[in-house]
């Protein structure tokens, strides 16, 4: 039985807070409803990054988005990591706390990449145990993001069936990365609409939008370009199922000036308003 209620939906539009835009956020009133930060960048002892986050937090709700929890690790998640994250969560009081449906670590090795899971019953048990442990440590329900992937293993379930079972058993929410659905659908040959139909729409609390690039053999989730039209169309379909939820543009490379990202965010805002009407 899930122990923690999901945070209530928040229908706003935001951006990932990146170093390139720190000054904009500190010196001007940036028209966003929230910002998202990479949790690990602020799980530190002190210094300027934490100071900046505290100041930004005075103006905007913050979402903590992690990349190293590794809920798919067969050898469990690490207590020390959870303690550090909990300290940050307690201080920042974020809107949501999220990470990825993936694994990054096994034994003493940490890949620093979001690695794919086989969608088997064994993996589901391990992922759910790890999510339970994380949510108990943090004292709140988390969101987990669907990954983009370049390898698919044989498994008993599709990714969306796995996600549906995971949310039901743990009570966690979803961070739906629409670009990742598009990339994985292209790489593995499934229908992105089947994916959107298969996930539990009522568990989606946040949506990521990003650009990708064409690799030699497959699409690569590079976060270094504008969102393409096909992903915008998929986003429109997603919010027709989930309702307008917290939506943000994720850009991690080739980061443009803030007005460019705000203009892109306006497309999401426009689609959200259209759906709400």
């Amino acid at each position, binding site marked *: 039985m899930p122990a923690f209620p999901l945070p209530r939906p928040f229908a706003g539009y935001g951006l990932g807070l990146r170093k390139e835009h720190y000054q904009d956020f500190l010196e001007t009133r940036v028209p966003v409803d929230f910002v998202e930060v990479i949790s*690990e960048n602020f*799980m*530190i*002892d*002190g*210094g*300027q*990054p*934490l*100071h900046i986050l505290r100041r930004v937090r005075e103006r905007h709700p913050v979402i903590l988005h992690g990349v*190293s929890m590794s809920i*798919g*690790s*067969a*050898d469990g998640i*690490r207590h020390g*990591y959870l303690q550090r994250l909990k300290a940050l969560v307690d201080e920042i009081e974020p809107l949501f706390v999220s990470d990825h449906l993936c*694994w990054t*670590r*096994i*034994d*003493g*090795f*940490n*890949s*620093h*990449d979001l*690695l794919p*899971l*086989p969608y*088997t019953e*064994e*993996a589901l048990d*391990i992922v759910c145990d790890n999510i339970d442990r994380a949510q108990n440590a943090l004292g709140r329900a988390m969101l987990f993001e669907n990954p983009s*992937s*370049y*390898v*698919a*293993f*044989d498994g008993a379930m599709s990714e969306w069936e796995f996600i549906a079972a995971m949310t039901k058993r743990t009570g966690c929410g979803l961070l739906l990365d629409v670009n990742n659905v598009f990339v994985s659908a292209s*790489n593995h040959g499934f229908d992105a609409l089947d994916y959107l139909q298969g996930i539990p729409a009522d568990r989606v609390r946040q949506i990521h939008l990003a650009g990708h690039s064409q*690799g*030699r*053999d*497959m699409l*690569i989730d590079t976060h270094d370009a504008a969102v393409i039209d096909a992903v915008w169309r998929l986003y429109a379909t997603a919010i027709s199922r989930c309702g307008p939820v917290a939506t943000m543009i994720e850009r991690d490379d080739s980061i443009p000036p803030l007005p460019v990202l705000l203009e892109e965010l306006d497309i999401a805002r426009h689609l959200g308003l259209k759906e709400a009407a």
Partner: protein
Amino acid sequence: MTLAELQRDFRAWLVSASDESAARLGGGKRAGLAVYQNNYRAQLVGCLEQSFPQVRAWMGAEAFHYAAVSHIDRHPPHSWTLDAYADNFGATLAALFPRNPDIHELAWIEAALTTAFVARDAAPVAAADLANIDWDAARLLLAPSLLTLPATTNAAGIWSALHEGRDRPEAEMLAQPCALLVWRRGFVSRLHTVDMLEHEAILHVQANGSFHALCEMLVGRVGESEGVIRAGAMLAGWIGSELVTGVDRALPIFTTPNQGD
């Protein structure tokens, strides 16, 4: 195959890129596995390049890349934070380039600057806060970000020239060894050099904090009158540089009588 077995095979693929590990993960996955292999290595090379920009500028991109690849092959990452991957790159550089102490010390400087940047916060003590201190009992607390290293080369000068975009000096051994200090002042990491006596004094204060013991140590080194003068001058310099962040057991010499007395 269990999940643990699959993950260990995947780790083996990332670390070694061997045909055997790829085969164990199943057929038809080579293109996708190559994407993960590329992501893994690019991420780690990028981390080292970002953490050691002046070492890279000093060595040249090709030599640095060789060192980075060697480091990745020898030391798979272990921490949840990518920043930690830079921690022992200096040891790899020392092993690869044993005759280049300039490179070792430059790498230490860059790693220390990064460490100090996110060290625990501690407000500096101002000179005005030190009135009425019983210096015989006082124990100094130095900035938690403070790191030191005895140096044999002009690495500090090289780093400063590279950082400020000035002409780079030739590497040279110092006529007299000195010590490098790195700490954070406000939100900015600082680099400074001191003579070996001051380095010894700082280590002494870091170890036990006693200002009285510091004076005794300096008196033993340079004589009674000079030792006390040096202790006072060092303390003034450390306070001015925001290196002193606390004075424990700072008992007031005069106490205010209770109102009821």
